[in-house]
């Protein structure tokens, strides 16, 4: 199986996010980066498919040159190759999808995996858009994935914990979430191998954004709260406040 895993370099989730001076982007000062959380489940899913069915796992990223660090982490986990489409801009899902789809067309692919949502832009859209551009089936938010006889059986987490089961023909696009697997840590052998693996960088041919940011604001400050009281006896006061002051029950 030829498996492609698209991953994103994103600020770590403990990062404090402040608008930059341009008022449109975030200020990168003091921000650390990692593989976007859900993409780790996609990497693990790719490696598990390779271990079961043979083949290769190729990492594909649209991002700055610094993203080779996160890509090498994926290789160290067990992926085989990587391509970086270099761009320093924070593209939206539509521009990202077009750049990725153009590259995927040139690579053999039976399965294209994504994290279901990025922890920064949070559009949960890129995977499905790539599927549409390539004319492939897509199943998003996968919590179970199995491949046999050119078909993928995928369970998707739908509303209220329901699971929808799909059976789709390969090649297919699947976006992955927590619960699908437990992403492994890289071992020393993997880390050494990743150091030796070339990560070819080509300039991204990313088109214009589909939606563009006009401005980025901090969230409105919440009004000062109050401590109602201590222990069980405060519960009666709270119930009254929720009904009469907050009017939410």
């Amino acid at each position, binding site marked *: 199986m030829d498996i492609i895993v698209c991953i994103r370099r994103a600020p770590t989730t403990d990062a404090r996010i402040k608008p930059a001076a341009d008022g449109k982007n975030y200020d990168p000062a003091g921000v650390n980066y990692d593989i976007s959380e859900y993409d780790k489940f996609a990497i693990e899913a790719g490696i598990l498919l390779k271990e079961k069915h043979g083949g290769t796992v190729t990492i594909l990223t649209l991002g700055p040159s610094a993203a080779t660090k996160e890509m090498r982490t994926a290789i160290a986990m067990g992926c085989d190759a990587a391509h970086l489409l270099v761009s320093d801009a924070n593209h939206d899902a539509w521009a990202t999808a077009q750049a990725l789809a153009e590259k995927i067309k040139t690579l053999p692919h039976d399965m294209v995996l994504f994290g279901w949502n990025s922890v920064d832009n949070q559009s949960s859209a890129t995977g499905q858009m790539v599927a549409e551009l390539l004319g492939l089936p897509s199943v998003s938010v996968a919590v179970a994935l199995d491949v046999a006889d050119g078909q993928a059986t995928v369970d998707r987490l739908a509303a209220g914990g329901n699971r929808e089961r799909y059976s789709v023909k390969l090649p297919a696009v699947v976006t992955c979430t927590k619960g699908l697997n437990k992403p492994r840590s890289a071992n020393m052998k993997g880390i050494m191998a990743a150091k030796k693996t070339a990560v070819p960088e080509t300039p991204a041919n990313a088109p214009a954004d589909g939606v563009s940011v006009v401005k980025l604001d901090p969230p409105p400050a919440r009004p000062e*709260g109050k401590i109602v009281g201590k222990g069980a006896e405060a519960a009666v006061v*709270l119930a009254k406040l929720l009904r009469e002051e907050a009017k*939410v029950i």
Partner: protein
Amino acid sequence: MSDVLVFVEFSDGAATKAGLQALGAGSTLAKALGGKAIALVIGNNAGELGKHGADRVLVAGGDAVGSYSPDGFARIVAEHAKSTGAAAVLASATPMGKDFFARAAAIAKCGLAADCVELKVEGGKPRAVRPVFAGKALATVEAPGTLWATLRPNVFAEVSGGSDAAPETVPVTFGPGDLKAVVKEIVAGVKGKLDVAEAEIVVSGGRGLKDPAGEGKQNWANLEALAETLGAAIGASRAVVDAGWRGHGEQVGQTGKTVSPKLYIACGISGAIQHLAGMSGSKVIVAINKDDNAPIFKVADYGIVGTVEDVVPALTAALKETLGS
């Protein structure tokens, strides 16, 4: 180009609350643009959407849409986005909307403003405000052409009144054989269980409730009782989900679901930055924690300092009294 097309989600033959909220938002936006709100329903009787703000109601039914299909639903919405020339195309940011609307926007060669919390008109054009980084920042976005957007549940109000619009049946231009992915069956489903991202009230448990398979058993039963009393969905912190105490579909935060209920009650949750980001858009936040320095109290409107063992059952009893009166 001033009309607004709204995909209204149905479940069990009726429009969902989130679907009617999206229609309400679409109706308000259409008025601001000087156009009409056009509701689009797939595969169901459209009911009386004219009473919920729709000026026109389109119904696309038939064999091809008997079961949910992301590519099938996407084609239908994209076709009607084109035929109506809508300035904005909207859906709810529910698991269904988040799944297929990106495909639909891609067919229309447009981007997607996902999980929006505000719509407005500036310079004659629709703009959307959407949280990024789970709410650590708010981005105002616009599109060069049609604005495609999904709307966060519980943020936009339903509207009443409007038109006596009779449903217009519109053809589906493909057959079941043309679909790439179709739901085959629902497995491990819990019928009628409210999703934490769509619930009006969320009661969340953290590490302070302890292991439900051990000494925390009664705490979790108490939390369930509190949720039941309020008709709330259960949420959980990442620590709780990573420990395997609750399902990952319930995780609230930057690496889980971002929620905006009218009432969020955090029990035994200290308030890591990722969790605070995911729930600070709630209208009213209540925190119950034994540590009066817990960061959760910084975002809470009301706090009780105490153990979950003491406070949660007392709160359930007090609420029963209040709700009963």
